[in-house]
């Protein structure tokens, strides 16, 4: 999609801050580390750099994130997880040749991975090597690592001149990503090229409808953000609730984040609860729901969502430290100690966490 590798919530609302969990990482949200073949080599330095890299990717600060992963790799060059994330950062930065080399290194370290194959296919596509892109993306398309695999495969076929095969894969992509206007636009163009006018018209209509919805959402978010900054909550609420879509987890998460960013935690609760019902694998939704309960002093209810968030993203320091704090607030000092020790490994520079840990350890000795 025109040199842009950002996807998911960040792609749907590319100009919008994603709130108190930070912006959704371009790949991180879809590439849980556990899925990447890993060679476990522990080391506090490596882990801390890796965690910071993950955090920076979440904030879309890819240059800085790449630096952290590089440092992690300087401690342990054989860590495929760090190398994989480093490669994804490089791709995000448009350093495609370097990214390719890193992905190839990951393959050497950890063997074949459909995630790596997917990214190498994307790189082929960006390099206009359609034959290789088709081969790679085609090899993972039946068990796709990401929902947009069929889309990129379709684009590769179309670009290579095989409109029929491209159309077939774009049709599949439209089923997998029914609300992505870009998919419907490409499919409409493919139908137009094949002189399939009726089907093209249908897809253009869908594209137009989804594009309009997207633009309206952008406007609603601007109005909501502006209202939350400048108006009383009651006045802002009306604008914000235009974003509410009970069937769209991304929009619900976004709405929760906007409320959360403005400190309106009570307002954030309902959309985030609904979001995790719709998408049980959304790290952002779980994390933000946990934050929201936490900020409302509802520690018992915060625990579950934060545990879920940590399970989805064990390297994300923000979730881990907040889970530790929640356990602490619930009086489960033993569990809190374990979690906060992990948080401290992820971010040894956090003096406050270190201080709390010190107190907990002292109390344990008592």
């Amino acid at each position: 999609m025109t040199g842009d590798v950002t996807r998911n919530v960040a792609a749907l609302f590319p100009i919008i801050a994603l709130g108190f969990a930070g912006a959704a990482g371009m790949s991180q949200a879809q590439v849980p580390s556990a899925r990447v073949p890993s060679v476990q080599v522990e080391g506090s330095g490596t882990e801390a750099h890796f965690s910071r890299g993950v955090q920076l990717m979440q904030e879309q600060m890819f240059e800085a994130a790449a630096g952290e992963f590089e440092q992690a790799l300087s401690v342990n060059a054989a860590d495929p997880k760090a190398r994989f994330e480093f490669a994804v950062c490089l791709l995000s930065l448009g350093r495609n040749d370097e990214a390719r080399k890193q992905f190839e290194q990951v393959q050497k370290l950890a063997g074949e991975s459909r995630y790596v194959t997917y990214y190498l296919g994307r790189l082929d596509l960006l390099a206009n090597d359609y034959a290789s892109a088709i081969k790679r993306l085609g090899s993972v398309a039946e068990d796709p690592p990401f929902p947009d695999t069929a889309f990129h495969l379709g684009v590769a076929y179309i670009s290579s001149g095989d409109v029929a095969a491209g159309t077939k894969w774009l049709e599949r992509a439209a089923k997998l990503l029914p609300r992505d206007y870009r998919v419907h636009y490409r499919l409409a163009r493919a139908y137009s090229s094949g002189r399939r006018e009726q089907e093209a018209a249908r897809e253009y209509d869908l594209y137009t409808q989804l594009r309009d919805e997207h633009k309206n959402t952008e406007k609603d978010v601007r109005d909501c953000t502006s209202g939350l900054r400048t108006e009383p909550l009651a006045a802002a609420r009306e604008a914000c609730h235009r974003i509410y879509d009970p069937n769209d987890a991304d929009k619900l998460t976004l709405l929760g984040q906007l409320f959360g960013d403005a400190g309106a935690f009570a307002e954030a609760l309902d959309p985030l609860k609904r979001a995790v019902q719709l998408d049980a694998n959304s790290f952002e939704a779980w994390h933000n729901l946990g934050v929201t309960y936490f900020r409302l002093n509802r520690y018992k209810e915060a625990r579950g969502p934060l545990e879920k968030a940590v399970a989805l993203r064990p390297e994300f320091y923000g979730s881990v430290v907040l889970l530790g704090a929640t356990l602490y607030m619930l009086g489960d000092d033993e569990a809190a100690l374990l979690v906060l020790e992990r948080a401290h490994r992820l971010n040894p520079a956090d003096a406050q966490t270190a201080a709390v840990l010190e107190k907990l350890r002292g109390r344990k000795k008592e």
Partner: protein
Amino acid sequence: MRGVTRREFLAILAAGTAGAGVSRAQEPGGMASRGVRPQPRGKPSGLRFHARFTDVAAHAGLRAPVTYGPSDRMDYILESMGCGVAFLDYDNDGWLDIFLLSGTHREGPVEGATNRLYKNNRDGTFTDVTAKAGLVRQGWACGVTVGDYNNDGFEDLFITGWPQNILYRNNGDGTFTDVTEAAGLSHPGKRWGSGCTWVDYDRDGRLDLFVSNYLVFDFDKIPATGKDPNCNFKGVPVNCGPRGLVPERPMLYHNNGDGTFTDVTERSGVGSLKPGFGLTAVAADLDGDGWQDIYVACDSTPSLVFRNRGDGTFAEQGLLSGLAVNEDGNEQAGMGIAIGDFDTDGRLDALKTHFAEDTVALYRNAGHLVFEDVTLRAGLGVETRYVGWGDGIADLDNDGLPDLFWVTGSTFPEVERKHPEFPHKTPRVLFRNLGGGRFEELLDAAGSAIAEAHSSRGVAFGDFDNDGDLDILIMNMNEPPSLLRNDVRGGGHWLKVKLVGTRSNASAIGAVATAAYGGRRQAQAVLAASGYLSCGDRRLHFGLGAATTADLEIVWPSGVRESVKGLRADELVTVKEGAGVVARERFRS
């Protein structure tokens, strides 16, 4: 003890984890910039480029700056958009003259700020004949289209601007007369006319007039700089718009043949669509059906394609054609449009320029009004740094393959103080055609004038020194224009074609000539406007590479088809509709 510790802990978390504290994406600003990262640059081809450009404006006598608002800031979008330029032969002496539009200051008239006409002295210099020609005028001029609307053999001028447009009739004696009112082209109130093009949409042999309008503008009603998210760029308060302002509809005027025009905007269907932020308008037969279509670059709204139904009405088919948005279905900040045949397959393709952090869009014509966005495939995604304006698909080195060129410049001079990576003045962009649908950006291989930084807007291509290559005229904001003289080495041959209509309009605007040479077929259209709000040399220029002859097929706006075989290279041929070649000229050098 425990309670105190918990409060401390909560405070820590409130500061460090929950709530704000994560990076926030930039506000969108008023332009459709997509934040696209450039594609990596490939290895240089190592091939020599045989064109060299030198800015000879000062030597040529083009020393007066083009005033357009204050030079250090742009408080209003009107001050930021600049204007077009034109190459024309107003006195029919066979040498291109120059017409430069101008703006002014909001506060009041600026001494010396006027549209200017420069007569070609045929020795590389020009003489300012503005006053003698009766063209002194100060205001916010925007676009220009050149064409012989009354078929008297002399090129007339139509100028858009705020708050009124102007029609100048060429009297044939070196002077012009403002006939706007008499022609029925003045309008009540204030309107911001932007793009304009002569077009014989009904094939009656007379040039009609299409005008795009940008947005509703009033100095007293536009929000102040930095007022809302549409008035910010990278966190810096800037002029507002176009997003957040009120878009406009285009207009179409029918030429009655008696010096007057009738507004047919509604009747033709041009006025029935949703308003947009229309800028450059180009008329050409895009679907090859013999009827002139109109392509309008729109700024941050989908661009428009008016397909001529052949019955006096148009159908808007931007989306269906693929020319409205980019390949992902996103609208872009359309500024300039170039029409040409970059892949020499005999069909007219299009190049559209946009805002910074976005690519241009190169559309390949696949026939039947289906265009493919081939921007990334062509290798153009490497350049996303600058705001692009006037552009051209033109064979600059006479190798037989049309190259791509555009000028650049920021609309927000205030931004570079905080973000040096977004300078106000930026270089020109040149992509040489490698063949096979691929291009290569030349950063310093085409002469110093390409790398020079200006905040440019309009651009026109033409051979002002009649030496067999294409030179480039550029409008620079609050600076004198640039005149890039092209000195081509390498021995590539060329053919120039001047078309004169008889049944068609005398300027032959809308004619398509396809040259066959060296195994290629390259189509070119006679355009009355192109680039950004500008107008180039009406004489078509074909680089022929090593070929020494070319065959020509012409489709005249009247529908008449004509073929000319075995034309010798390195000549200007004049073809009169229905009469074939009526003149040949070899240039001195």
